[in-house]
């Protein structure tokens, strides 16, 4: 019922999808797996008609509904009103009749969600994601696309979701769901499509695969990291409850995106930190650089003094040192590629020789070369005595860099784990299957 004939899509210089084809039959449950940045969400947004492909075409019989990773809800409205927004226009209705309509839609979806008069802003993330699902189902789509639907659900809620998915598929709805949790993919999907670097690299019936084979197909094998420079561990620079980072060490916080990483990074800013504390922000385009200002001005922002000429000279030196691809220090920062913007941020923060460096998803969306560069710089910073806290959802990155790890799940940190312990326990901790 869905045919994607080879589509290609680029964002600037970055090719997000490269000749990707996909077929989905009525009533089929297909999982699309892959690492961050493999092109899964882009492909599905093209299927849902939210993005236009550069080339190729999508043929779809019937309607499609997509549940996004971030919520498309109106916090100030009630559950009932949010559902009514998703339903066909009803003309005139009293509040009671809207609530009845909503309750009927919830009952029909088979998902449990009580008291439709509650304001959506007051709901938990789990409840919000249920509401998103009910909204999608209420539109009676022939194809339902779910983007990482279980990332914020408890194990029980995930089970409930799977029951609903199976029931929908039995009723003839095709389901495509994006995930990177292999056990659940194997449990629910009939067919699994593996994506890597914008391409489909493997495709097979679920019962012909096991978790190890899947993981092999999914993850790019990378060369073993260079042995880190010798570091001496010094005094504690940051401590909050169980979380402690000492000078010269790299501590990683790993977890599935949306488990309170942003809140953690935010709360660290409130602590009494050393004056030379640097933050590499997660949302680079929003929090990283002032796009309209020059590279030199952006670098000078963290200085107490500013002399335009000195700032330009310093920026030119940093452009050289950090191999930033820029024409001059006067170039607007916003005109740089993502990787080079990240280099500017790193250059600015590392040049201050920070006592503490908190880096959130420092390589998200970067190409392999830039990623390696960022990793090397973090190691060098630690070797020079910085205490480095790395918050990442990229496990490879965490294991390649960290001396110790914590897992974050629903806003709570696990105990401090050594890399060996983490390798064994992280999957269970990240999925919330075991607690402490």
């Amino acid at each position, binding site marked *: 019922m869905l045919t994607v004939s080879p589509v290609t899509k680029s964002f600037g210089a970055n090719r997000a999808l490269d000749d990707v084809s996909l077929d989905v039959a009525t009533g089929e449950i297909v999982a699309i797996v892959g690492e961050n940045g493999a092109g899964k969400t882009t492909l599905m947004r093209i299927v849902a008609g939210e993005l236009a492909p550069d080339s190729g075409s999508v043929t779809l019989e019937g309607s499609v509904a997509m549940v996004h990773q971030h919520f498309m809800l109106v916090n100030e409205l009630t559950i009932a009103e949010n559902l009514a*927004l998703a339903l066909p*226009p009803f003309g005139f209705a009293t509040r009671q009749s809207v609530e009845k309509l909503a309750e009927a839609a919830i009952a029909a979806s088979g998902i449990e969600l009580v008291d439709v008069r509650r304001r959506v802003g007051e709901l938990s993330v789990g409840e919000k994601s249920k509401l998103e699902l009910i909204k999608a189902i209420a539109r009676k789509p022939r194809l339902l696309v779910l983007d990482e639907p279980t990332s914020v659900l408890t194990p029980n809620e995930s089970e409930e979701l799977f029951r609903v998915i199976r029931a929908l598929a039995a009723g003839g709805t095709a389901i495509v769901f994006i995930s990177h949790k292999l056990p659940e993919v194997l449990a629910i999907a009939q067919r699994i499509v593996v994506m890597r670097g914008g391409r489909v690299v493997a495709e097979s019936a679920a019962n012909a695969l096991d978790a190890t084979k899947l993981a092999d197909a999914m993850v790019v094998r990378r060369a073993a990291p260079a042995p880190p420079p010798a570091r001496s561990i010094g005094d504690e620079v940051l401590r909050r409850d169980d979380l402690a980072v000492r000078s010269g060490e790299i501590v990683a916080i790993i977890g599935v995106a949306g488990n309170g990483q942003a809140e953690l990074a935010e709360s660290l800013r409130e602590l009494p930190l050393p004056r030379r504390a640097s933050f590499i922000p997660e949302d680079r385009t929003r929090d990283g650089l002032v796009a309209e200002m020059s590279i030199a001005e952006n670098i000078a922002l963290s200085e107490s003094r500013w002399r335009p000429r000195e700032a330009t000279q310093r920026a030119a030196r940093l452009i050289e040192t950090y191999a930033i691809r820029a024409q001059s220090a006067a170039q607007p920062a916003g005109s740089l590629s993502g990787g080079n913007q990240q280099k500017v941020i790193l250059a600015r923060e590392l040049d201050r020789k920070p006592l503490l460096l908190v880096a959130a998803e420092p390589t998200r969306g970067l190409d392999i070369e830039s990623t390696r560069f960022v990793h090397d710089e973090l190691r060098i910073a630690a070797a020079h005595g910085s205490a480095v806290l790395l918050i990442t959802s990229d496990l490879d990155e965490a294991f390649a860099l960290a001396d110790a790890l914590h897992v974050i799940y629903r806003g709570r940190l696990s105990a401090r784990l050594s890399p060996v312990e983490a390798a064994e326990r992280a999957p269970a901790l990240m999925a919330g299957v075991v607690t402490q």
Partner: protein
Amino acid sequence: MIDVIAQALPLAVVASTPLLLAVEGETVVERSGIINLGIEGMMLTGAMTAVIAAQLTGSTVAGFAGGIAGALFIGALFGLFTIVRRADQIVTGTAINLLALGLTGFAWRELEQRALFTRGVPRITFDVIVPFAWIIVPIALALMLWNTSFGLRLRACGENPEAVTASGASVDAHRWIALIIESVLAGIGGAYLALALSSGFAENMTAGRGFIALSIVIFGRWKLKGALLGTAVFGATAAIQYALQATSRGVPFHLLLAAPYIVTLLILCGIAGRVRAPESLGK
């Protein structure tokens, strides 16, 4: 002094009717996520076009139609800049006010000199606008906002337009309709000001009513009940001030006039109760 105040209040209801219409319109528009600073210019233009239409035809009904047409023109201009061109709403609103002030000031003086009008400005004989503004419009708008799927979507446009787009509806279409509703109400308000409360047009005759309306929308917490209450409070303060000014000396009238603004300021700071502007207002 009490009887002076008591006499002033019924007059206040009539005198603040144009203000109320503007408040009702601005409430709807702000609920859809647009802040229209240009409502002052909308009323002012409506007042002038109403007088022109009424004098040309000799009919007050035509006058009101003219007022609505003038305000719709300003509304279309505002929408063209802010909805179509996505120009800044604050900047556009400010420009619209200056435009209306300049255009009506210039045009009216030209018209007066030509003595084009052979008859005087017709006056309203049977006043339907007061009950219309104080009873019919608030009920109709409240029903629309809270009991129709159009109103639901309109409110969602003011909170999270992305969610409206995701549901397949057009945010721009909803904002245009809100703007049209506001224009019609502001046009009627301007016409009433010129045809019922005054005997014709005068330069800058709205005298800041649009800005006062913006304040009352906050005072009323973006609700129609609040719009009625807020207009009554602001209107009564002004009426009492005039009544006292005429009869007794030594009362600080001007400080009394400032009081409702101070209260609105306190409301904005959440000191006088919880208030929350629509999330996407002005964005």
